[in-house]
C-alpha cells in the first residue's frame, strides 16, 4: 500500500481515492464528477501527447489534465 498522486499513476494501474487536496470550483467539479474519497479509480491511458489523462471512475471514462490530477491522492496496492 502506498499513496501517490493520480497524475503519477501508470497506465492500467488501479487504486482508491484517498483525498482531494484542491480548493475552489475545480475541486468541486472533480468531486461532483465522482472523484470522492473511497471511489475506485483506474488510470487508463495518457493522451497521445502525454497530457491529459483518461481515467475510469464510477464506471465511466473521464479525462483531465495532469495538473488537475495532482490534486487527487490515490492509494495503490
Amino acid at each position: 500500500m502506498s499513496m501517490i498522486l493520480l497524475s503519477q499513476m501508470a497506465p492500467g494501474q488501479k487504486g482508491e481515492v484517498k483525498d482531494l487536496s484542491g480548493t475552489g470550483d475545480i475541486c468541486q467539479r472533480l468531486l461532483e464528477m465522482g472523484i470522492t474519497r473511497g471511489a475506485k479509480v483506474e488510470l487508463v491511458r495518457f493522451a497521445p501527447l502525454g497530457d491529459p489523462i483518461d481515467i475510469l471512475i464510477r464506471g465511466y471514462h473521464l479525462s483531465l489534465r495532469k495538473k488537475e490530477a495532482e490534486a487527487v491522492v490515490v492509494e495503490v496496492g
Partner: protein
Amino acid sequence: MTDSTLLQAEFPTRTLTVALAGNPNSGKTSLFNALTKLRQKVGNYPGVTVEKKEGKMTAPAGPRQLSGDSQTEGPEVSILDLPGTYSLAVRSPDEQVARDVLLGLMPDTPKSDLVVCVVDASNLERNLYLVTQVQDLGVSVVVALNMMDMAERQGKEIDLEKLSRSLGCPVVPTVASRNKGIEELKKVILSAPRRGGERAWHMPPAMEECVAELRQLLMKEHGIGGRLAFSEAVILLSKEDLSNEPLAQGSPAVRERLSSLRGRLTQLNINWRSAAIEARYAWIQSILKEAVHQSVTRRLFLSDRIDLVLTHKVWGWVFFLGVMGLMFFMIFSVATIPMDWIDNKFAALADLIKEAMEPSDLRDLLTDGVIAGVGGVVIFLPQILILFFFIGLLQDTGYMARAAFIMDRVMNKAGLHGKSFIPLLSSFACAIPGIMAARSIEHPKDRLVTILIAPWMSCSARLPVYAILIATILPAAAPLQKAGIMLTMYLLGIFGAFAAAVLLKKTVLRSATPVFIMELPPYRLPSVKSVLLQMWERSFLFLQKAGTVIFGLSVVLWALMSYPKHSGDPTEALNHSFAGMAGHVIEPIIKPLGYDWRVGIGLIGSFAAREVFVSTMNIVFNIGNAGDATEPLLDAFRKAAWPDGRPLFTPLSCLSLMVFYVYAMQCLSTVAVVRRETNGWKWPLLQLFYMTGFAYFAAFVVYQGGKLLGF
C-alpha cells in the same frame, strides 16, 4: 370512470409543463425528439445565451383508442429541453439556466409541473447524482432510464421496482434512439404524482445540523421556501467561491454564519467541501447495490478496445488526420456531381424564363438577379450537407470527445481548452453554431477567446469563394492540387486563430490556462436518424439564409448594379451604376491587393455574407460581358481583364483574394451572434476591426510579396 376521464378530472384542460433534465450524452435530445415528434421550436432564454428548446408532446396511443372512447384529449403537454448538465451547483450559464427553469425563476418560462430526469442506465452512478440535486428542489420527478440496451449489453440487470422505490419516484426504461418505452413514458408523465418526494439521502449529523441552521437563516433572510432553502444551504456550504452567489452576497448575516459553520465543521474534522457530495454518492451506491446486478464481471468493452487504437500515440494521429482529410476530399470530389446537376437546373430555369418573357427589367431581375444569385449559393448545398454529415457523425459516435482529448495539449499551447476544439471544428461548417457551442466552456475569458477566433476557421460560406478561385487558378481537373490549396487556406485560418489566441490570452484577456475535465462517452453506433436530422436542421438554416438574406441581397445588389440606367454596352452600364461607383471609390484601396472595382463590388456585398461574393460575381460578369446569362462564371473570370489587357484573375490575385476571405470578418450574422453572446458591441466591433485589418494586411503581403518574387 376510464383512465382518461380520471386524468381530465385531476388536471383540467390546462397545459402541463414538463422539463427534461439530464447529463450531457444521456440521450436527452433523442428522447425529446421521440416525445415531441419534432413539433418543436428552438429559441434562447432571455438575457442569457443558452438555447431553449420547446416542443409539444404527442398524445400517447393507448386504451383510449382501443375502447373507442374519443371525447377526451387529455391536457396539452409542453416539453422543455433543459441544457445538459452534470450538476446544478457550480453554476456555469447552462447550470444556472437549468436551475432557474426548474425553480420557475426564468422569465417567460412557466414553472414546470414535472421534471423528467433522463438517466443513462449504462452509467447510473454519476447520472443519478444530478437526480438527487433535482429532487432536493422539491419538484416532482420521473426518471427516464435511457440507454437500456447499452446497460443490457454490459451485463447489467436493473431491478426497476427496487430502483423506483429507493428513488421515491416512477422509473421508466427507454431506448430513445429506437423509440422504445416512449409510449409508456408519456403515460407516466400524464399520471405521475404532482409533488416531490422526501429527501432520502443523508449527510453526517454535524453537517446536517449546519445545513439545517443555514436553511433557517436563508428562509428568514430571503423569504424563500423550505425545500429551496435546503438546496441552497447545501450548495452554499459546500462552495468555496461565493462571489456569484446572490443569497450570500446579498446578506452579511448569511456570510458570517457560513464562515462560523465552516469553522465548526473543520474543528469536527468534517470536510465541508466534500461532505454533501460524498453523502449523495454514498446514498447512490447503496441504492445501486440493491437494485443493480452485474452478471458479467469487468471485461474490456468494445469501446475500450476501439480507444486502444483511436487514442494510440501513432494510430490515433493517423486516424485523426485521415478523418479530417477524408472529409475535405469528399467535399471536393463527391460533391461536384450533385453540384453540376443543381447548376444545370438553375441554368435551365433561367433559359425557360428568358424564352417565356418579353425582355424587360422584371425579366432581368428574375434571371440575372434572383436565379443567378440564389442558384449560385444553393449549388453549395451538397458540400454543406457533407460537412454537416461528418460533424454529426463525429458527434454521434463519440469521436468528437476523443478529438478534444487528443488535441487538448495542442490547444493548451495557445492557452485554450480541449473543449474549444469542438466550437472551432463546428466553425468550419459555420461560425454561428460554433460560437454558440462555446457556451460549454465554463470560464468566461476562455469562452470569449474562443468566440473571438472562431470566425477564422474557414466556414462553409467561404467554400464557394475558395472553390471558384481555385478553379480559376487550376482549370484542369486536378483534385489533389485543388484539395492542397484548399487545405492551405484552412491551415492559414487555423494558424491565424492560434496566434490570435496566444496574443489575446497575453493581453486583453489575460487569464490562467483553463481546466479540462471532460467525459469520454463510450463509442456508439451512430443513429442514421439523428445524423440526418442534424444535417437537415443545419442545412435548412443555410437554405433559409439563401432564401431570405441572400435572396434579398441579390435583389438589392442587382438593383444597385442596374440603376441608374445607362445606355451603351452593359459594361459601361455597370460602370455607371451605384455599385460600380462604390467599387470605383474603393478601387484605389484594394488595388494593392490585386483587385479591381468589380471585385470591389463583390467585397462590398460580402460584408453582408461571404457567399454573396459568388452570386455578386455572377451578376457582375453576366451583365458586364453582355454574354449569355448562363455562361459559367469561370469562363468570365478567365476572360476578365484590367483596362490595359492584363488578366484580372491571375493565380496571385486569386490567392490574395482567398487570403483576404480567410481572415476578413464578412458576415453580419456572426457579428450579430457575437454581440448576443457577449452582451454588447465592444467585442464584435473589436473583432470586425482586427479581423478585417489583418485580412487587408495579409492579402497585401501575399500580392505585393508575390509580385516581388516575380510571380
